[in-house]
């Protein structure tokens, strides 16, 4: 048997606790401490851009719904915006507000989903159940508006496929009041909890400078004190008409650290902000149609003639989503379609925030940049002789729970 010397290599993945996309991590470990991090994404690359370049824009819209199961509306919205710019489609004003309301309900459900998973990773399963229970309300409202819980299929180039009529407002208001009533409880449970503070404060720190250099986006960037929010910076849909500010950790903490705790602060208070934004939208919503061209055959014909290039950006729950589209006026399918999802920008930050942390902290830190967590399978560990062992998700989770118990004494 050969001598084992630190650092050890610990591969995690390709199927991993913290992602909807499988990913492969390699940690160089010195005892419990992570010395170096490397990752390889693309384990489930579906070639969506390739597919899109062989389909017409309306077909792509529905493909966009399926890019992400959590931000179902963000990608369809951003693609519609890019194509509208190329074809110079006049979107009716009311559609901007419908788009904004759905996008904000999506943010509520995504942030609460993430909060639940974060609690679960810390071994706080009561809170996980509570969070996922209250998340249902927002999914119910999305179903009430769009008819669907996951792939909403509500966006259309030139507006939305369904309207939100004033007789629907009471149901929306009911959901907003439900969340408003729960906000204090959520703040108390997540932010005043001794255990969560112990595990999350000063864990996985990303400084403001590095957040900028590594091109991070969304709550991950904001938690590091980087004021950046597409809704404010470069407003789309109805956001330019509304009054709200960028949520930074200062809203709750006295100083910005850029740790996991600050990422919880930003997301919880963004739920509060979303409630406010939806109320403003319902109050200011102009009358009129919600779709520029109702006949899809005519719409497609116009789009086929359109040529040019454009990009659009939206603030999805996890950060900036960006689509670049180039159309040449000769074919229905775009000549080029580039999709940039928020996690694409945030993944580089892992290398930074995982260094120097412990194995038991890996699940929560990996989860902290990305609310889209899917179920995990296993973690393969290969020792120097090449014998493979398997660390199950349950084992990793137990390690994390045990650390919580240890710290509680």
């Amino acid at each position: 048997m050969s001598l084992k010397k630190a650092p050890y290599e610990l591969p995690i993945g390709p199927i991993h606790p913290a992602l909807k996309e499988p990913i492969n991590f390699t940690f160089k470990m010195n005892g419990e401490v992570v010395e170096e991090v490397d990752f390889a994404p693309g384990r489930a690359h579906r070639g969506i851009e390739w597919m899109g370049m062989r389909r017409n824009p309306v077909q792509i819209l529905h493909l966009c719904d399926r890019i992400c199961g959590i931000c179902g509306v963000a990608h369809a919205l951003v693609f519609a915006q890019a194509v509208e710019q190329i074809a110079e489609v006049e979107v009716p004003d009311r559609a901007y507000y419908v788009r904004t309301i759905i996008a904000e309900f999506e943010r509520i459900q995504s942030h609460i989903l993430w909060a639940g998973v974060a609690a679960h990773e810390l071994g706080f399963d009561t809170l996980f159940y509570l969070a996922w229970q209250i998340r249902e309300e927002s999914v119910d409202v999305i179903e009430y508006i769009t008819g669907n819980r996951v792939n909403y299929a509500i966006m259309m180039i030139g507006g939305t496929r369904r309207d939100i009529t004033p007789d629907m407002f009471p149901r929306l208001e009911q959901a907003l009041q439900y969340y408003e009533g729960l906000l204090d409880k959520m703040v108390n449970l997540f932010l005043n909890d001794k255990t969560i503070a112990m595990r999350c404060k000063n864990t996985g720190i990303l400084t403001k400078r590095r957040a900028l250099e590594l091109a991070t986006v969304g709550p991950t960037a904001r938690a590091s004190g980087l004021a950046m929010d597409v809704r404010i910076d470069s407003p789309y849909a109805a956001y330019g008409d509304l009054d709200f500010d960028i949520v930074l950790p200062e809203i709750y903490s006295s100083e910005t650290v850029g740790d996991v705790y600050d990422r919880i602060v930003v997301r919880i208070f963004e739920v509060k902000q979303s409630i406010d934004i939806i109320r403003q939208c319902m109050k200011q919503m102009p009358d009129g149609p919600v779709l520029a061209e109702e006949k899809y055959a005519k719409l497609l014909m116009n789009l086929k003639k359109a040529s040019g290039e454009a990009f659009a950006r939206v603030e999805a729950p996890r950060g900036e989503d960006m689509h670049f589209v180039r159309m040449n006026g000769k074919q229905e399918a775009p000549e080029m379609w580039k999709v940039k999802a928020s996690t694409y920008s945030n993944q580089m930050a892992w290398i930074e925030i995982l260094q120097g942390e412990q194995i038991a902290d890996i699940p929560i830190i990996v989860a902290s940049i990305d609310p889209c967590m899917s179920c995990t399978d296993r973690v393969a560990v290969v020792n120097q002789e090449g014998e493979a062992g398997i660390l199950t998700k349950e084992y990793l989770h137990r390690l994390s729970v045990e650390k919580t118990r240890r710290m509680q004494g």
Partner: protein
Amino acid sequence: MRATMTPQELADRFVNKFGSLISNIRVKEWCEGVKKTPQKTVWITVPRETLNDVVAELIAIDYPHLGVIAAADNGDQIDLLYHLQVFFGGKHEEIEVVITVEVPKSDPHVPTISGLIPGAVYSEREKQDMIGIIVDGIPDARRIFLPDDFPEDVYPWRKDEKGIPPSMVKELWKVGRPTDRAVPPVAEPEPVQKSDTEEPPSGGATE
């Protein structure tokens, strides 16, 4: 509060500094919402030799956020589009700068910008995978999205002979139903004769 400038001032600053090296300058606005708040963009095209200088000049103005590097197959050349934003954080003040670099397919080299913006490595690796450019000086040249056993010299975003050949495309609809399965226990129901006088079956959809 950072000092900001208008998109035109930004474009002029590049022209003053780099002169004729900058071409195809387009200052655009796109407005959404009732108040028609503008999204401001500046598109410029620069030769690849000047790319790093232009990015450095942008950093001197305001450290940009790199959204993504997009790429498009454009006949004999590949267009790389660097999407960078400056002046974010202030209300409605952001300007998006799109730097286009045209790279000939016969010599698909482009310098890395990761020395200036470390986060660019991720996107540069993707461009090497997907459209087959070579990023000179990239600190990490490994594949990022494509699997290790993906054939060399095939690039999914290419429209030419180096793109995905038809032999690599799996059409799901062509797969058909499996033929080696056990016969279903229930036989196919007999087609029911339609008759206008017949009552609709109970329990079905009603108006």
